[in-house]
């Protein structure tokens, strides 16, 4: 498989994702012409580049589907649910063909044939005349489609008796306005004095400047019924290609270039000069309306070219993910070296070195942020993927479910987003299968028939908070409790708070679904979800209101590679705590510790906060110093103090994994390299809190 084909596959995958989103949107707004256009273009590109790179089967198949959308685009066919369904099936088939080319196993040809025949049937039933045409499927793509944007100068000068034919010119103008960016200027110079006016005559004529990609014929079509009743002229004022060629210079500029005139003199002269429009109007050579129309045209042309330039400027380049990873690794190493430099400069008394170290620190920080920024992707991409899932699932299960989203623009590291897919699929399935009730049951409870799954994402400190919320039945507390005691997670009649009970749903093999469906309920799932989120150094929690729904909250770190952290020491060993979780540091004197010996609690401004000695927790030998430090941390609203020997300060931590040999270690999520070359361990505060609260049972 050569590179070009790989590039095509990559591109086609993106287009297919876009196609899916557009199709689902189209289902909701069947009349949206822009959406239809987007769908058509996506198919067209898949087809065109497919043929170019040797994916002839894809090109041939896509062509059939594209033909249908061409008809839809021209308004000859209506968007129906059936069409959307078939299009989605076709999109899946294209994807299958794409994957097939990858694996070498040919895709199901019968499926393609089925989709095409159904599409053809659909086309014939909605437009009978199309069936009469011999081979509509191979009609060449319309010329207008390929036409690039241009500015048209249209003068629509109706005859005086236009109104008598029952034509409303405003409707025609409105139609023009739908075709693109449009400025209409009414010209009143034909209007006679009041005594001479014929109240039923049309004296006004219009100068329209239109920027569109539809082509001249489409514009002429608008006026097709009034052609005999008006003088119509349609001229291309400028297309972008023309505008680029016509970069001719103004007279003043030429004079300056030839040295006949200095720029200063020119600008003085220009200032004293009246604008040509003003002059012409003053001299009554042209009317103010005509000047306005001309100015509007000028503005359109400028905007068109400006837009083109902007498009070219914001163009992106495709970079191999491996190269990005390499870049991130290098930045990681640079950060480590920079930490060493800073540490060394602090020990020296050379002011020059201090300056350099600070400068390097600033630049490294910026470089790090920029590099991490490259890997950031809006989470909306994966949200829109789930739209399809929700649609298909609710259909399969006979439920009515809408999906709403918020915060699609929230950015997360690419690797994090990729790994979120499976857990999310699971959670959404759970919500639809177990959470949301069938329409009848909902109606009986006085809820709207249609359930809602709401996905939202938002930044919160150095992490991203994602919520999956449904308005279904909520968790069945009694069933959970029964199940928990069955599995021995709960002593009989033992008291347990609701939130602890809900947390048990994440234990392996825990499912309360009465029956196993092919969607969910087999009890493999929530623990897998939790493990997936844990692996991303995230946390997951769940709240539920009986009858009102369930909310799952997932907190994820922004990036997997580098974090800001607090460096602390216990004995000789360095540990780092993610700074986002750290709230404050306070001293713990021996006396204070003695007072709270029975329950490891400390008062922080009126609140009692439990604390854990990391020295004890990690079994580090040696005597703690007389004054220890407590770092107050907060994870998921739980505050806990971590007792350490010494707080060193802030540190940029490049996260390194510990590898398979240390996978089982709890309370440590990774390691990092300090400025002096030694290794410090990254404390997993979430796990420490979890373990500590388990101990207290």
């Amino acid at each position: 498989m050569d590179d070009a084909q790989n590039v095509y596959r990559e591109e086609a995958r993106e287009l297919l994702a876009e196609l899916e989103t557009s199709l689902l949107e189209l289902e909701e707004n069947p009349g949206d012409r822009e959406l239809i256009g987007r769908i058509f273009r996506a198919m067209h590109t898949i087809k065109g580049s497919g043929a170019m790179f040797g994916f002839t089967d894809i090109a041939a198949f896509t062509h059939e589907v594209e033909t249908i959308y061409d008809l839809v685009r021209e308004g000859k066919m209506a968007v129906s649910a059936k069409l959307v369904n078939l299009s989605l099936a076709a999109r899946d088939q294209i994807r299958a063909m794409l994957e097939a080319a990858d694996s070498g196993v040919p895709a199901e040809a019968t499926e393609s044939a089925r989709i095409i025949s159904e599409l053809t049937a659909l086309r014939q039933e909605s437009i009978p005349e199309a069936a009469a045409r011999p081979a509509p499927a191979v009609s060449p793509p319309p010329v207008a489609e390929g036409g690039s944007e241009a500015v048209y100068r249209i003068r629509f000068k109706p005859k005086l008796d236009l109104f008598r034919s029952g034509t409303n010119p405003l409707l025609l103008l409105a139609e023009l306005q739908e075709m693109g960016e449009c400025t209409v200027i009414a010209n009143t110079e034909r209007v006679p004095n009041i005594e001479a006016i014929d109240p039923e005559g049309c004296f006004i004529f219009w100068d329209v400047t239109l920027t569109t990609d539809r082509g001249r014929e489409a514009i002429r079509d608008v006026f097709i019924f009034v052609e005999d009743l008006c003088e119509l002229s349609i001229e291309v004022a400028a297309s972008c290609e023309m505008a680029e060629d016509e970069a001719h210079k103004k007279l003043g500029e030429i004079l300056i270039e030839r040295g006949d005139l200095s720029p200063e003199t020119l600008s003085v002269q220009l200032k004293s000069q009246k604008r040509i429009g003003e002059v012409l109007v003053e001299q009554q050579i042209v009317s103010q309306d005509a000047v306005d129309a001309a100015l509007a045209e000028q503005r359109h042309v400028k905007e068109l070219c400006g837009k083109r330039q902007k498009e070219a400027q914001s163009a992106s380049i495709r970079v191999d993910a491996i190269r990005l990873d390499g870049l991130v690794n290098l930045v990681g190493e640079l950060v480590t070296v920079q930490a060493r430099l800073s540490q060394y400069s602090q020990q020296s008394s050379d002011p020059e070195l201090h300056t350099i170290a600070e400068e390097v620190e600033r630049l490294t920080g910026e470089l790090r942020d920029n590099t991490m920024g490259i890997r950031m992707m809006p989470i909306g991409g994966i949200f829109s993927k789930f739209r399809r899932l929700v649609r298909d699932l609710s259909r399969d299960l006979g439920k009515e479910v809408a999906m709403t989203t918020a915060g699609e623009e929230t950015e997360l590291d690419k690797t994090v987003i990729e790994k979120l897919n499976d857990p999310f699929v699971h959670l959404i399935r759970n919500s639809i299968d177990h959470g949301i009730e069938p329409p009848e049951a909902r109606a009986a409870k006085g809820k709207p028939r249609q359930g809602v799954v709401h996905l939202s994402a938002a930044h919160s400190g150095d992490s991203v908070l994602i919520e999956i919320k449904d308005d279904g039945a909520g968790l069945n507390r009694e069933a959970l409790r029964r199940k928990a005691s069955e599995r021995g997670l709960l002593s009989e009649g033992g008291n347990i708070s609701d939130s602890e009970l809900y947390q048990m749903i994440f234990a392996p093999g825990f499912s309360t679904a009465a029956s196993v469906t092919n969607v969910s309920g087999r009890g493999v799932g929530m623990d897998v979800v939790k493990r997936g989120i844990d692996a991303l150094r995230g946390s997951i929690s769940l709240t539920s209101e009986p009858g009102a729904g369930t909310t799952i909250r997932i907190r994820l770190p922004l990036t997997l590679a580098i974090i800001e952290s607090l460096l602390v020491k216990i004995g000789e060993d360095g540990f780092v705590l993610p700074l986002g979780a750290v709230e404050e540091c306070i001293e713990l004197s021996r006396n204070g510790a003695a007072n709270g010996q029975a329950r490891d609690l400390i008062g922080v401004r009126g609140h009692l906060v439990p604390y854990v000695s990391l020295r004890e927790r990690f079994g580090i030998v040696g005597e703690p110093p007389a004054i220890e430090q407590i770092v107050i941390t907060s994870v998921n609203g739980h505050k806990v103090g971590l007792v350490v020997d010494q707080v060193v300060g802030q540190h940029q931590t490049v996260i390194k994994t510990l590898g398979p040999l240390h996978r089982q270690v709890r309370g440590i999520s990774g390691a990092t390299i300090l400025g002096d070359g030694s290794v410090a361990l990254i404390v997993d505060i979430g796990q420490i809190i979890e373990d500590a609260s388990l101990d207290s049972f």
Partner: protein
Amino acid sequence: MGVEGINQTDQYLTFRLGEEVFALEIGKVREVLDFTNITKVPQTPPFMRGVINLRGSVVPVMDMNLKFGMPETAKTVNTCIIIAEIVVEGETTVVGALADSVREVLDLEPGQIEPAPKIGTRLNTDFIKGMGKTDDTFIIILDIDRVFSEEEKAAIRAVESGE
């Protein structure tokens, strides 16, 4: 005579643990480091000495003396860390092994290598690939993948039975 899987002359890195001479296939060995600071990882058995910084990567280090039931490796001028590439669960990982001293690189022909004796060794014979013979000394050729992956399996068992 002969050991399965060894049918050509290979080079072996020999090293000392206590009084005995051990060897690793040279293909497994990446480099040999001087003893550096090792950061202990909590909740690991004593023979997992901790992790070191290998030019920016974090590499776990095992004390083979402790692993094989001998006293802890003392820090001397000769103490080395042998950096080896091993395969754990199909994944290639870099690990370090503490040795009292590193000796030399030897050529051993298949005929010079005998299967591990079933009895008479203190260490688990699973860890031994074969016994090399030069002149009058025996060299224990280690199966380093097993030494480490055994550890991994044990850890998983500990986690499973603990919960």
